[in-house]
C-alpha cells in the first residue's frame, strides 16, 4: 500500500491508521504535525510546486520502501492557509516489526520537514508577514540519514 497526497483539506488520522492496520503487519508507526501558535502566529501559509512536490514525495516514499521492509506507507501534506492547532502533515508506516516502521517514519518526516519543496509564510497577530528561512538544524538532521 502506498499513498502520497498533497491537499488543502484536512485529513482523518484514524482512517489512515485503520488502512495501515489492515495490512497484516505487527507495527504501525505514525507522526502527525500540527501548527503551533507561538510568538503571535495566527496562520501559516504553505506554498508548494505541485508537479515537483508530488513527484519528490513519491520518490522519497519509494526510497523508504526500498530501504525498509514496509507493508504500507501513507504520507499526506497540506498546503494553503493553516491556523494554529491545524494538522499539517501525516506520515504512517506499517511493517512486520516495529524497528522498520519507526525508523522509516522518522526518515520520512525528517525529509518532509527539511527537503520537501514547500515554502512557509507566517501571518502574525500584528499584521506582519514573514517568509520562513530554511532551517539549518533540520538540514543537519536530514543529512544524518544520508551518511
Amino acid at each position: 500500500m502506498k499513498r502520497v497526497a498533497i491537499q488543502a483539506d484536512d485529513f482523518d488520522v484514524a482512517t489512515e491508521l485503520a488502512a495501515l492496520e489492515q495490512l497484516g503487519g505487527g507495527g504501525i508507526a505514525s507522526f502527525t504535525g500540527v501548527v503551533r501558535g507561538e510568538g503571535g502566529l495566527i496562520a501559516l501559509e504553505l506554498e508548494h510546486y505541485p508537479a515537483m512536490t508530488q513527484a519528490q514525495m513519491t520518490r522519497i516514499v519509494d526510497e523508504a520502501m526500498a530501504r525498509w521492509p514496509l507493508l504500507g506507507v501513507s504520507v499526506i501534506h497540506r498546503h494553503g492557509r493553516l491556523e494554529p492547532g491545524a494538522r499539517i502533515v501525516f506520515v504512517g508506516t506499517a511493517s512486520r516489526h516495529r524497528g522498520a516502521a519507526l525508523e522509516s517514519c522518522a526518515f520520512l518526516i525528517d525529509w518532509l520537514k527539511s527537503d520537501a519543496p514547500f515554502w512557509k509564510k507566517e501571518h502574525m497577530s500584528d499584521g506582519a508577514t514573514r517568509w520562513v528561512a530554511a532551517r539549518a538544524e533540520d538540514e543537519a538532521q536530514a543529512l544524518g540519514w544520508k551518511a
Partner: protein
Amino acid sequence: MAALSLVYFAWVRESIGCDGEQVARPASGATIADLITQLAARGDGYALALGDVARVRAAIDQRFAPLDTVIGDAREIALFPPVTGG
C-alpha cells in the same frame, strides 16, 4: 524552438509580481545563472527577487538543479528561495 516557461514561488513570486511567464529561449549554452542575471537586469521587482543570486534556488523540469546547469532544451525553469520543508 518553443519559448521557455518560467515559474516563481514564495518571495521570488511576490517580488516579481506574477507566478510565471513565457520568455524567449536563451542562447545555446546559457545556464540558469545567466538567465537569472538577464532577468534581474529588468530592474524593479526582478532586481529585488533575483539580484542576490546566492538567495535563489532553481529546478529544471521539476527537478532541483544547480545554477550552473545549462538550460538546453528544458521546458520549465522554476526559481524560488531555498525550500523550508513542510
